């Protein structure tokens, strides 16, 4: 037996309460993940352009300009960067691939010349940790929200029936002479 003082009345349909649990969660998270996924795929290496200048730019933008701070060979206005771009152009015209060109520069300047660390060995840490951290955070949020929803459930429990009865009796006693 539930009294009126039990569950607070809600003018909502029962459909959202289903949504609230499983589908809502899946929906929101899924949407965010889907978008991120597309973005990740999109921001990866785009279709190789047939245009030579575009290819020079693409390869040069992954090499570090060694005389400036933090600029790529593609962006840097320095003279050495210009010569390096010319060299990249020549190597591309000779038919060398992006990997071969990078390997050449690394053999001369060291790994330092690559603007993004190659995805090998120890460097996998820097590529992988961000996604792991976010996954861990999402998991944490999931755990916390589950606890919060459980706590909400608890506070919505219908009252103990005998206690509800007692309250009703007391109210009737109070309202009795005037109301009933």
């Amino acid at each position: 037996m539930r009294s009126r003082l039990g569950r607070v009345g809600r003018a909502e349909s029962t459909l959202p309460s289903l949504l609230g649990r499983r589908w809502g969660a899946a929906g929101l998270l899924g949407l965010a993940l889907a978008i991120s996924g597309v973005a990740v795929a999109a921001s990866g290496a785009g279709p190789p352009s047939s245009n030579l200048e575009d290819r020079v730019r693409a390869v040069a933008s992954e090499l570090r300009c060694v005389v400036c701070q933090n600029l790529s060979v593609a962006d840097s206005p320095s003279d050495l960067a210009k010569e390096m771009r010319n060299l990249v152009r020549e190597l591309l015209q000779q038919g060398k691939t992006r990997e071969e060109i990078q390997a050449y520069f690394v053999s001369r300047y060291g790994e330092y010349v690559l603007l993004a660390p190659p995805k090998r060995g120890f460097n996998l840490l820097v590529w992988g940790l961000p996604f792991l951290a976010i996954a861990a955070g999402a998991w944490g949020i999931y755990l916390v929200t589950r606890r919060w929803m459980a706590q909400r459930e608890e506070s919505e429990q219908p009252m103990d029936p005998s206690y509800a009865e007692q309250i009703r009796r007391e109210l009737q006693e109070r309202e009795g002479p005037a109301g009933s």
Partner: protein
Amino acid sequence: MISTLGGFVLFFALCVTLYAVAASVAGARAGREDWLASSRNAVLAHFCLVTLAIFLLEYALITSDFSLRYVVNTSTRGSLTRYKIAGLWGSLEGSILLWEWLQALMATLVVARYSDRHRLLMPYVQAILQGISAFFLLLMTFGANPFTRVFPIPLDGRGLNPLLEVTDMLVHPLLLYLGYVGFSVPFAFAMAALITGRPSEEWLTITRRWTVVAWLFLTGGIFYGGWWSYRTLGWGGYWAWDPVENASFMPWLTGTAFIHSVMIQERKRMLKVWNLILITLTFSLVIFGTFLTRSGILGSVHAFADGPVGIMFLAFLALILLFSFSLVAYRSDRLKGHGELDSIVSRESAFLLNNLVLVGICFTVFLGTIFPLLAEAIRGTKISVGTPYFNRVSVPLGMALLLLMGIGPLIAWGRASLNNLKRNFLWPSLAAVAGAGILYVLGVRQTEVLLAFLLCLFVLGTVVFEFTVATRTRAKTTGEGMLGAFTTLLLKGRRRYGGLIVHLGVVVAIIGIAVSSVYKVEHEQTLKQGESLSVGPYSLRFDGLAAGERPTHILVWANLMASKNGKPLHELTPGQRFYPNQQTPFGSVDARYHWNEDLYVILSAFERDGSSATIKAMINPMISWIWIGGGVILLGVIVAVLPERHLAMLSLRARAQAA
């Protein structure tokens, strides 16, 4: 004389701040009001002393007193007065003095404003703020004294790096420092709340405006820095993921997360521990950032490092981290909020995800910034972590954030019903898909750009939808005209609608970033006199070289005649500046800045006899939208923090005009 006096003033100020810390804590614990009053006086005295120190140093700078090493390093006799004044923050020691002065100023304002009202917290707030000041004064007394003498006294100073003798130098550092120092106030209140064992919501509401204003300055500083880089450095970009740039970005990220998640704490009394961690992280990242800039452990264009300063900053950073996190751990029992969540489809969830993404980006930037150091420690090789890495990892996260920006403000608290979702998101979603479809038809094919536009249009749609519906409803119910209703809406719900305007600004900036990076066109060519270079629809004709003497340098420039689709536009004169002290010249960019695209030109090289010049020209489409977006963000924050009194006046005036 100035040197001795200045050194003494700083040392005296240090003693006063230490006294203020002691008096505040002792007075609070013993309940002695007279000690507390004395500590407040000490705060004021501290501010006066540091102001005096600033006056002394500025006096030395303006009168070109080269007996001080700092003046020699940051100015020359021939420098313009305003750059002599700016020399105050041109190099390490002076910048620390400026930071400390701002810190003292904030402490004084906080004490003046809040001492009467929050008697329990204030002594500890004072103590923390004065403690921070004590560190900076200690730093100056023992590591980086701006009043050090030099002997023999040189005839002329060396001057600042020529790149810094520009108007931007008068603005950018100040904006950033106001932001950095501003975050120390909510931090101090948070720590005070923990120390007194009353981590209630009080500290949040007190410091809300401070936090938002500090965030405003930091945002302004970051945008301004990008704008300055773009116009000056000559590579056509505005952000290079340089360690010091990252250092300003990280506290911005956690600060933004903090501003959002406190809204949950205010409403639902949840996330108390998390908010304390966020503000501690924000302030710690501020100190970490200034540590990076001044320690020289990571190479950077911005770094200006020396001696024991780095070690002292690291020690201070360690102290702050250990102190504040220990406090949080110690008091964590009292912080357990009773968290309740109706449904995952709710604003609470959106805010949680917002925090996840922002802190995720911050973690990534932090990892990328220190990873070269880690790799060197473990593997012994030097590697680089630069733009390709940061872009690759932060772009997807940025997209997720965009989505949340659209959903968050409109989704209901507690439990979003299907009705609520349909009502608020149907039209914006349709508009976004339609807009993206139109773009696709018009020829935009890159996935990134389409996705960015889809999400930006979605957010734009939600903002416009919200404003329209709310204005219309208000106009109907109160009978005001649309404009009157709109104004009243802004003024009555300034936090909400100011926030929406800020989101709008972010969207505008992101569109600018996406379009300008994907559709950038550039071309470099060596031209003989009379020859032309073409880039896109523009053509640049090289009309000859010229040179002239300027007060501080020799300028060589190329006269270029720009025309678009055959129609002549105007002259552009990119050049190179040759300074006496510098080995290589500095580029001088010339550009046609326009709301829809920039024509950006630099002079790469030239023949001494003026027969030929190598010109690099680029078209940056919609790059101005980034700066415009920054302006809109500024506008939104101002709307959000307008105080009550002005509000009533404006609202009356608006109603009078509408009637």
